[in-house]
């Protein structure tokens, strides 16, 4: 299927669908188009990264089981080049696969079989990221967060975070005294209404810690509250 041009100027964002199943890809296209997105397709894993570089989509829908190249590898490759939101499509609910995908850099995942509503909710939540910028500056420990500029610095040195990691950090920093349960974070950061997989939170907190903590083994920015969830470290 050739990459389709933007249908109109009112597109809500370009979505690159990386999937080898033609029927599913087409169906995804139909659903996305109905919701006002501009889908583009690539069915061959080997060409996925090249297509990504060419099209610069606003979001990637990535099937983890692809011929040619492993979906995890593609995910990791895209993540090295861009902080674009990545939503995995996975047929496996086994922990290892989901966690591996998240660790490879995916922001969220949808388990097959999913309904259009679920998919659209995930896509919408990821694309909405970063819209809520007000002029505010936050800090946790020695980490400074400039919210409108999407900049995180420590001692003046910038720390590169994906939009999701940024939102996670901002959510914690805005209410420094509150302990966030995983469910609350899922709702605030990922946009889940009902309970979802709390591993999303765990994996991304680990990724975030790997970037912002001096020693991820002894976190000072994102603290664990045993049995409850997470909270920001002292400012």
């Amino acid at each position, binding site marked *: 299927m050739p990459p389709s041009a933007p249908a109109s100027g009112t597109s809500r964002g370009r979505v690159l669908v990386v999937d080898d*199943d033609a*029927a*599913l890809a087409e*169906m*995804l296209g*139909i*659903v996305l188009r*109905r919701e006002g997105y501009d889908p583009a397709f690539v069915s061959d894993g080997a060409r996925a990264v090249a297509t990504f570089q060419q099209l610069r989509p606003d979001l990637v829908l990535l099937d983890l*089981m692809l011929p040619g190249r492993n979906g995890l590898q593609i995910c990791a490759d895209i993540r090295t080049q861009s902080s674009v939101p990545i939503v995995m*499509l996975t*047929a*496996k609910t*086994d*922990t290892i696969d989901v966690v591996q995908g998240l660790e490879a850099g995916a922001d969220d995942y949808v388990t*097959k*079989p*999913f*309904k*259009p*509503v679920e*998919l659209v909710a995930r896509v919408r939540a990821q694309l909405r990221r970063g819209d809520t910028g007000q002029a505010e500056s936050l800090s946790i420990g020695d980490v400074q967060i400039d919210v409108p500029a999407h900049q995180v610095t420590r001692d003046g040195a910038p720390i590169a975070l994906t939009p999701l990691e940024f939102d996670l950090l901002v959510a914690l920093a805005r209410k420094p005294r509150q302990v966030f*349960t995983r*469910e609350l974070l899922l709702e605030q950061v990922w946009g889940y209404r*009902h*309970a979802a*997989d*709390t*591993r999303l939170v*765990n994996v991304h907190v680990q990724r975030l810690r790997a970037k912002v903590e001096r020693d991820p083994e002894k976190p000072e920015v994102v603290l664990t509250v*045993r*049995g*409850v969830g997470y909270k920001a470290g002292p400012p």
Partner: protein
Amino acid sequence: MRRERRSSRGLRGPVSTTIGPPVVDRGPQPDDGSSPPPSRRRPVQLGRGVRRRVRRARRRALVRTGRGARRVVHAWRASLQLRVGAITMLVAAVVVVIVSMVLFTQIRGQLLDVKQQAAVDQSLAGVVYAQTEVSGIATGDSASVRSTLSRTVEGLQRLGGAAGDFDVVMVYRSGEDERPAVSRRGVEPALPADLRAQVTGGAQAYRYARVPDLRGEPVPSLIVGAPVPTDPGGGDSVEVYFAFPLDQEQANLAGIRSTVAITSAVLVLFVAGIGVLVTRLVVDPVRRAAGSAQRLAEGHLEERLAVRGEDDLARLATSFNAMAEGLQQQITQLEALSRLQQRFTSDVSHELRTPLTTVQMAAAVLHDARGEFDPAVARSAELLQAELNRFEALLTDLLEISRYDAGAATLEPEPQELSPLVQRVVTGMASLAERHGCALLVSLPPRSVIAEVDGRRVERVLRNLVGNAIEHGRGEPVEITLAASRSAAAITVRDHGVGLTSEDAQHVFDRFWRADPSRVRTVGGSGLGLSISLEDARLHGGWLQVWGLPGEGAQFRLTLPLVAGSELTSSPLPLRPPMLSRGQA
């Protein structure tokens, strides 16, 4: 509390100084529960303390010896080699001791026999000589008698004989009057009285007795006594005694004895050594086999024994290897099957899910647009959507249970609060409860309950239980209760529906089992929900149990350990509702 107080009083108590340092006992005292106030019992208490100390010291000593004895017993039971060695040594020692005793007795007997024969012969010769010497003795003249006797004694000594050195005693007896003549002092008093009596009576006799030697040391000797015939008719008589010292024989016997003893000891050790050696030859391969079997049991399936020769041990090794081979094959085969099953599960998962996703999305699009269709097509779209949901639920459950069957399910415990978890499930089930016109009554403990659980699985169990209760609850309220003890948390889900017979209760966790096959399905469960819940509970090391009474409803109880991996001993909530508050309405 009270025990401590009492102990400190005991330290200050006046009696304690006389008895010695009191014993402060912190051990359990089972008889304290019903004891009268402590003040009245103080002296008794101290006495008991001392007695207890003594008892404890005795027990400690017993324990110590017991421990040593136990170690010996253990070594005895554990080592075949030790056992065989010890038994061989014991048996060999008994045999050797008996044999050497017999041998020694015989040697001694023969030695003495020879000596005795020689002594008797010599004394007979001596008597003949003495007879000629004393034949002309002047009986009245004591000086002549003495000189004759002395001469005869000297002559006898000079004569010597085959039986070696000896001493001579001659006694001249005239009525009650005795005149001895001796070759050496000290010999005469050592003559046994009964021997003398016998000789006086006119018989030749011999005895063994101890006679002092030159240094006065008593030496075992053979004493032969005989009357010397004199002129008949006279009232006088002469006796002659020969004392043959047996020191030479004694020295010989001592030498033989020590030789026999040393030989015996060497023999015993040698036999025991052979026993141990032979056992070792047998035991070593058996030990190797035991070690191999143990390693095999630990999972080293490639473990084999070396086969040497064609004896019994070689046969043992061969059969062991055959068994190991069989085991390895079986296990490898089973592992391959299990892998195949897991692989199959995974493949089915992917292969079925992708088209199902497409179909479901298509159905959803049709469903959304059903307003534009004519009624039959619109209804078809609705049915398609609804049945696809059921299909998906069934597929999910099937895959889940097959994952359990393949042993591929893993627990991801994480400490979390259970109250919010219960609340989430209840919130999620609210719309279903509303549709059934049934209230969900939640009762949570005031304090937070944190347990190391796999939240996804626990939520799934609860959703199943609550959904089940709503479906079978006939619109009566469903009660969900959470409680915790120090080691476990329990959640009960109680409905007041048709209830369960005990027959039903045995089957509720069976796959695809339905209490009443004719009943309408409303929740649209797959029939696997409770089976999966049971597996989920088991994976946590927890319990999922059911109580039911026809007409009274049913109660499911999920009990989980607070610390993942710890053993459950009891549940904080009863399985059976304490009172049937809402009986058959």
